[in-house]
């Protein structure tokens, strides 16, 4: 049951924009000299974000004895660092739909995307990417599977038949999608990222995040990092199913056993970062 392409195009065009405040916070906080007052300004210009941050600060998690009434008050009371962390998580976690859709565990996919984002950012840092740029690696990981969410959400029947094809055959997700849906989640994701007018390298990264071709990866560090992070996270869960292409191994700079050994430490870091991002949920 292939997807109706014109319906898909129409749907993508009606998707809400990627939140501007999320983009701004991402840009601001990835700078070392992130100024507290600019951060407050961005949060305050977005009423929904402001409300969510205040709600969290006033929640039982913080256990404060007085009510926090403004963003400035929150910064004075619990500190700029804590508010910064809260704002990043709230702003970015609002970007994907979280309702359950046909047979897709959206929560699990969301969690997976966060992990890939955090790991891609760590890998980028290790490869000497300047801290002003690493935030795109996080966003790339966060959005790499947006195509899957879209299909499951808007084409539940098609999605289900694709899932049963995977179960019945030995085909990979990508092969099954191409066969059953006539389009892959990577291609759909690329359409979304175009609609959102994300930077070209992010579009490239979402489109090719399953690519194994060296020529598509070696000169596209963002695509390479998200691709590698995605494989590593899957490797942890189902080692027998995953092989890492030679060009990615080379980029990781270690034989696969060493990479695996390091993964446990990385996982800790990733889990830590993810659990703080998740609180905004």
């Amino acid at each position, binding site marked *: 049951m292939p997807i109706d392409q014109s319906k898909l195009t129409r749907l993508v065009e009606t998707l809400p924009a990627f939140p501007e405040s999320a983009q701004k916070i991402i840009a601001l906080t990835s700078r070392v000299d992130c100024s507290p*007052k600019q951060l407050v300004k961005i949060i305050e210009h977005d009423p929904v974000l402001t409300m969510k941050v205040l709600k969290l600060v006033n929640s039982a998690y913080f256990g404060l*004895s*007085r009510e926090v009434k403004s963003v400035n008050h929150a910064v004075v009371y*619990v500190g700029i660092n804590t508010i910064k962390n809260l704002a990043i998580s709230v702003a970015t976690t609002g970007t994907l739909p979280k309702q359950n859709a046909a047979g897709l565990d959206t929560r699990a996919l969301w969690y997976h995307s966060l992990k890939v984002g955090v790991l891609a950012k760590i890998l980028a840092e290790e490869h000497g990417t300047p801290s002003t740029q690493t935030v795109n690696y996080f966003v790339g990981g966060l959005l790499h599977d947006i195509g899957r969410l879209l299909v499951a959400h808007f084409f539940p029947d098609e999605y289900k038949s694709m899932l049963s094809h995977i179960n019945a055959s030995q085909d990979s997700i990508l092969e099954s999608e191409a066969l059953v849906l006539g389009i892959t989640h990577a291609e759909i994701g690329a359409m979304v990222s175009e609609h959102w007018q994300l930077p070209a390298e992010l579009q490239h990264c979402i489109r090719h995040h399953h690519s194994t071709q060296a020529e598509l990866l070696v000169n596209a560090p963002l695509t390479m990092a998200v691709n590698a992070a995605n494989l590593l996270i899957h490797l942890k869960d189902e080692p027998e199913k995953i092989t890492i292409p030679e060009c990615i191994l080379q980029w990781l700079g270690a034989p696969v056993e060493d990479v695996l050994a390091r993964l446990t430490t990385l996982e800790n870091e990733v889990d830590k970062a993810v*659990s*703080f991002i998740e609180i905004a949920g």
Partner: protein
Amino acid sequence: MKITLYGVRGSIPVPGKDTVKYGGNTTCIGLETPEGDQIIFDGGTGIRVLGMTLIKQLPVKCALFITHTHWDHIQGLPFFTPFFIPGSEVNIYGSFDPIYRKDLKTILSNQMEYCYFPVRECELNAQIQYNHVIERQPITVGSATITPILLNHPVLNYGYKVECHKKTFFFTGDYEPPYNIYDPDDHEFSEYETLLQQQRGQLADFIKHCDLVVADSQYSSEEYPSKKGWGHGSYDTCIQLAKEAQIKHMVMTHHDPLRTDAQLEQIWQGFSSRTDLPQNTKFELAIEGKSFVL
């Protein structure tokens, strides 16, 4: 009550000939009430020595308050002997981490994972209880009442006030008084200033006329501007707090790991000759091993 400083160093232990006088262990304070209740603040490396003292009288029963879980405030815990002695009872208090969404038990168990330490948390023989504190909700330990208050640091950090037989003791943990994030010509400046004064006023009221305060003074006034936002106080912020809250006795701690005994002596000489010190406060630099009786 008797208060003893077991660790007065910030960030990392610094043993060696240059730190013999002021001490090289990281943060830990012991408090004993006249009734013999044992209360501990923070588990920096100083807690090892305190543990050795406590086990002279078995079984050990104590309450341990953690200001925050930065490494220098918990790194001595795996070497706190009472944890390993059957029949000991340790009640641990601290904050739930709302950012990492982790409770104290998880944070402290992670610290004892097998790759870091040969004994796992679940193998400790003492009876250990974990409790999350809520701001300004008092906790009773024997004849003492301990009340937490949130103080500015990069992570949630609780200061603890102890009241016992009409005497009060307060420990800030790591604390940088919040500062104005706006420039004087921004129109938000004065609103923010008001919020800051409120916040400071609330802390001052909370510890008004306190008999003894141990406060974070990691930096000198000259160093502070380049360390602004790092989460630590200075000698000047301690003076200000002493003035605002009319503290009777102020002990300045969390010495920077780079400070030698000689430098601290020099700092003390400069400090004690200042003319802007509040008349009714006695000041001193924290020295490892020193006790105060209230």
